[in-house]
């Protein structure tokens, strides 16, 4: 059970505090409710590029990192399709430094042309390192644009193409900042050796004077129900054939969400999971295989992807996966197998909650979903899943018309 207190400033900023006096450290986590899905389709990759620019100096502080490092702190950030999250860990005695830095960049960035110019290049190198100069690096670009026709999940956070990143202008940067990086579109979470009263004072002092922005009303195109299965062939200079399949699944608020998560565990969680045991060990059709989902806020994708053993044909591999799918649709799950995946989930939650950093991330994320206390209810939601809910959810998701398949062939 993670205890926390919550308050809101007049400008709309939500602040959560979780105290843990066993550590000398504190974490300040600032989540902005903006992700790659909020981008203009003609300017993709922007939320992530912007994350880089947040370190390029703010209106009163020329460099973000140095004062933090001088105070013994460390920081990082990440961007997903749903959100952007910044966090720093710092000795608790120096926590005000984090408030000073984070509030100044919420107040306004410096909008330096040099920073934009350099970070465009850095992000292009990141793009090359992860998505071009890497075997199968383009698979997810292709899968997303195959599986989604309308919803902005159809592009990746890094952007749909290098050109979008290269073309970003300082005006784009300013517009984006003042649209999304406002206190009323952010959640601050402070965890560690702190007191709520102290955090209240610091939050009022540093974030209180920042003016609220216009409320952001998210109005994203809905992905229509897929009516026919889709597929794409790719041939590339990779050593092994790869099969990747996705099915549309519900979003974070869908009543089948927890059952879906457990389905991916039954199929793909660890080496006692079905796909590993049947397709790698017993049948030796794949040399590696995974089943997972991204836990996206809006309706997402359930994924099965694996590399084929050399000499096995794509058709044989596909048939073998579909046989496992049929099994989970047609046969009711054994109570012990369900208990296993619930136990595993409990364990994952306990280990995750060990650090004040993860507790801060989770509190911010669940608050974004609507209520940080959902974090404490999560295990109960899993424990309520029954074998028939698993079967029912599997039958809903694993329909042929709902499937997208990428046949990724080795040219050699």
């Amino acid at each position: 059970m993670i205890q926390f207190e919550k308050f809101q400033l007049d400008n709309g900023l939500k602040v959560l505090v979780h105290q843990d006096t066993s550590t000398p450290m504190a974490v300040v986590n600032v989540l902005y409710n903006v992700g790659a899905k909020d981008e203009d389709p003609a300017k993709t990759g922007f939320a992530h590029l912007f994350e880089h620019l947040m370190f390029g100096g703010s209106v009163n502080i020329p460099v973000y990192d140095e004062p933090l490092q001088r105070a013994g702190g460390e920081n990082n950030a990440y961007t997903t399709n749903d959100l952007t999250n910044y966090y720093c860990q710092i000795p608790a005695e120096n926590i005000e430094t984090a408030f000073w830095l984070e509030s100044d960049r919420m107040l306004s960035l410096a909008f330096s042309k040099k920073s934009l110019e350099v970070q465009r290049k850095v992000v292009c190198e990141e793009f090359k390192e992860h998505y071009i100069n890497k075997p199968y690096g383009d698979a997810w670009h292709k899968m997303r644009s195959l599986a989604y026709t309308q919803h902005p999940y159809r592009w990746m956070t890094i952007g749909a193409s290098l050109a979008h990143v290269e073309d970003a202008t300082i005006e784009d940067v300013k517009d984006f900042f003042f649209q999304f990086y406002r206190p009323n579109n952010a959640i601050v979470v402070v965890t560690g050796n702190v007191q709520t009263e102290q955090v209240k004072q610091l939050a009022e002092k540093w974030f209180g004077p920042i003016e609220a922005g216009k409320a952001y009303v998210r109005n994203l195109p809905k992905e229509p129900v897929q009516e026919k299965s889709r597929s794409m062939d790719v041939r590339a200079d990779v050593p092994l054939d790869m099969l990747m399949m996705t099915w549309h699944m519900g979003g974070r608020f869908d009543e089948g969400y927890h059952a879906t998560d457990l389905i991916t565990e039954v199929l793909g969680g660890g080496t006692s999971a079905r796909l590993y045991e049947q397709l790698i060990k017993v049948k030796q059709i794949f040399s590696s295989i995974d089943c997972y989902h991204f836990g996206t806020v809006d309706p997402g994708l359930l994924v099965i992807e694996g590399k084929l053993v050399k000499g096995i044909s794509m058709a044989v591999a596909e048939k073998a996966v579909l046989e496992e799918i049929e099994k989970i649709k047609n046969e009711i799950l054994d109570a012990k197998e369900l208990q296993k995946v619930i136990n595993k989930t409990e364990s994952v939650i306990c280990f995750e909650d060990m650090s004040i950093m993860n507790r801060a991330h989770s509190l911010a994320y669940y608050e974004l979903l609507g209520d940080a206390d959902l974090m404490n209810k999560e295990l109960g939601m899993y424990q309520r899943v029954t074998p028939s809910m698993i079967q029912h959810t599997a039958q809903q998701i694993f329909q042929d018309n709902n499937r997208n398949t990428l046949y990724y062939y080795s040219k050699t």
Partner: protein
Amino acid sequence: MALDRIVAPVIKDAIDFNIQLKPYQKFSLDNGVEVNAYEGGSQEVLLVDMVFYAGNSFEQKNWVAAATNFLLKNGTSTKTSFEITDAFEFYGAHLNRTCTNETATVTLHSLSKHFHEVIPIMGEIISEASFPEKEIAILKQNQIQRLLLNLKKGDFIANRLIDEYLFGFDHPYGKYSVEKDYTAINREDLVAFYEQYYLNGKCVIFIAGKFPSTMESLLNKHIGQLPLNKKDITEQAHPIISATEKKYSIVNDAASVQGSIRLARHFPNRHHPDFPAAQVLNNIFGGFFGSRLMSNIREDKGYTYGIHSYLQNYKHAGAWMVSTDAGKDVCKATIEEVYKEMKKLREELVGEEELKLVKNYMLGALLGDLDGPFQIISRWKTYLLNDLTEDYFYNTIKVVRSVRPEELQALANTYLTEEDFYELVVY
């Protein structure tokens, strides 16, 4: 009064923090195996780390140590591979294996309340591993496929080659596996290695987290009766034979859009008196996000997504390494900038402000690194396995606090010398 956002809030310098490495408890099992324990934490979880002197420096054939370590849990005299994994996973527990140069570990992560259910299986793996032929065949097949995939990646090739240049292919730190090493392994190799280095091997245990009251008796029952630590296992000395040629450029993929750059030189291990101050110098050079390499090559020029330098601290020898992936057309310029930064450190004193920042950053990060039971035991594990005591910890802190720019410049002149670095780019 208007809020002053220009002036930074007052801070307490991390160099003034009283940083303590909390002590561990020690006890022995019936068979003499030492257990080093740190109890604490906010969650009801624990870890058990069994460290065997069974790393790849003990093997006669390439890959035997790693394959033995990996296959420990793929079958015992009474259980199949699936039954073992399923038994751990049913209780939400995780059993990981890792094989490094000197040691190989079997690590259990478990909820405290289920520990008594899973420790018997951990004991069974150590005492009754059976290495079924079928499991060996599957591992070989999948390992060869994984290698084929990795050989497409420039960074993978670069990491292998730079170690080979430094230490020589016949040294445990410099060798790596090729396809025929995988095919050449047979069951007898694995069983023999297992019997010598696990079943009758030398082991030391590290545990951390929240312990059940029966912790000690459970360990004694399931591990303490095994025939471990009966004879001493002596490490063989391996001569280092470095490459004579210093500069390499390799084309692995003609269509590559980046080059994987590695620059490295020999460097002593942690027992050398220069080690603590060199860590400070390394941080200034390329050891963290605010370092000179990162500021210059990423944040000023945008040649790369990231560039890092680090002290590769193996038990018996080490290296000082610079590692980055940079755009194909700027690889040469990147290397030039790295050498320029070395030259600057040799010729100019580090400024007081910069030095103070790095000291505070290092000690603040250290404070964070010691936060939590797993982190504390992990630090003790590093020290004990490398024959270091807590004096090393406190001496390092003392040096970080007190080291002067003149000393760092002298170190730069000893170690950051262009002619001693191996230089490799893999496109």
